[in-house]
């Protein structure tokens, strides 16, 4: 697939500038990485889209600086910045790259300007769950930060209930259920699910409980303890 190739090219480009030390890959492309990380387990769904989401830690204490627009321009990405629909992304026929950041406190700003990378990051809630529970894995000779699969799955349950777009909500839920099926077969992952779940604020736990109660009985029993 073309998007696979360009995905690897983007990672390599960022790696050359040391950016992979700081950025965390989130979103659908994580499944692609999980699949490889877990020896190509067919239980891991591959519902990646053409959106490549990268999380910038908040606060952005970064080890390296770079001009991301320039790096992506070399790979034929162009910046599509539209204030009308709150979008700031780098577009390409086979992939779109977007930078996200965990929105903290009562912040209402849509974007956070990250000067060290010359980009604006879209601020969203609940990304702290992914940022605080990330791991470094080897992928195609690169070292990549990705969320713990358990955190990725719990995050999907939370956001599925908050999406305005029903199709996206269903897709999130389906991915969360399939990932749950896989994670529950691994003893180590069962422990991680409980540990991460216990570390979350009460409101987040309730959102997960509400979703899991209806959608995944085995996970519900595990979380209930």
């Amino acid at each position: 697939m073309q998007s696979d190739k360009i995905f690897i090219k983007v990672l390599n480009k960022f790696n050359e500038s040391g950016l992979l030390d700081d950025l965390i890959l989130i979103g659908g492309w994580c499944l692609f990485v999980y699949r490889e990380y877990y020896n190509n387990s067919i239980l891991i769904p591959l519902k990646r889209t053409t959106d490549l989401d990268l999380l910038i830690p908040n606060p952005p204490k970064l080890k390296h600086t770079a001009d991301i627009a320039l790096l992506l321009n070399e790979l034929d990405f162009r910046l599509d910045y539209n204030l009308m629909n709150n979008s700031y992304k780098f577009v390409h026929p086979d992939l779109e790259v977007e930078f996200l950041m965990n929105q903290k406190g009562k912040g209402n700003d849509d974007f956070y300007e990250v000067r060290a990378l010359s980009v604006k990051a879209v601020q969203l809630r609940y990304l702290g769950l992914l940022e605080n529970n990330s791991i470094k894995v080897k992928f195609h000779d690169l070292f990549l930060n990705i969320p713990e699969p358990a955190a990725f799955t719990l995050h999907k349950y939370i956001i599925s209930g908050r999406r305005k777009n029903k199709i996206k909500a269903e897709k999130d839920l389906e991915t969360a259920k399939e990932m749950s099926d896989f994670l529950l077969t691994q003893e180590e992952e069962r422990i991680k699910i409980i540990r991460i779940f216990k570390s979350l604020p009460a409101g987040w736990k309730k959102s997960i409980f509400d979703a899991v109660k209806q959608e995944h009985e085995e996970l519900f029993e595990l979380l209930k303890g």
Partner: protein
Amino acid sequence: MSTLMDIINEEKNRLEKLLIFYDKEIQKLPKGFISRKKINGNIYYYRCYRKDNSVKTIYLGTEKSDNFNKIQEQISERRKLEHLKRKTKENLLEAKRALRAER
């Protein structure tokens, strides 16, 4: 619609928006190509483009001229964008074909 078809439909919508984006960006840039002429041993550059069934030629200057360098860069960017637009159109056709087959 199945999840797979939802993904393809979502991709179709993205590609349609992307085509509009490329069109807008292309409109901002000069069209045509650059030609060079050697006059009395010196090389001069011109931008040639088609307008209303005739070919227009605009003098840009010598190789050192800022105007020439700027226009050359813009024409090269326009070509890149036109290439990306063609690729996007191909992808869009593929997505539409997949959706039609499902129906």
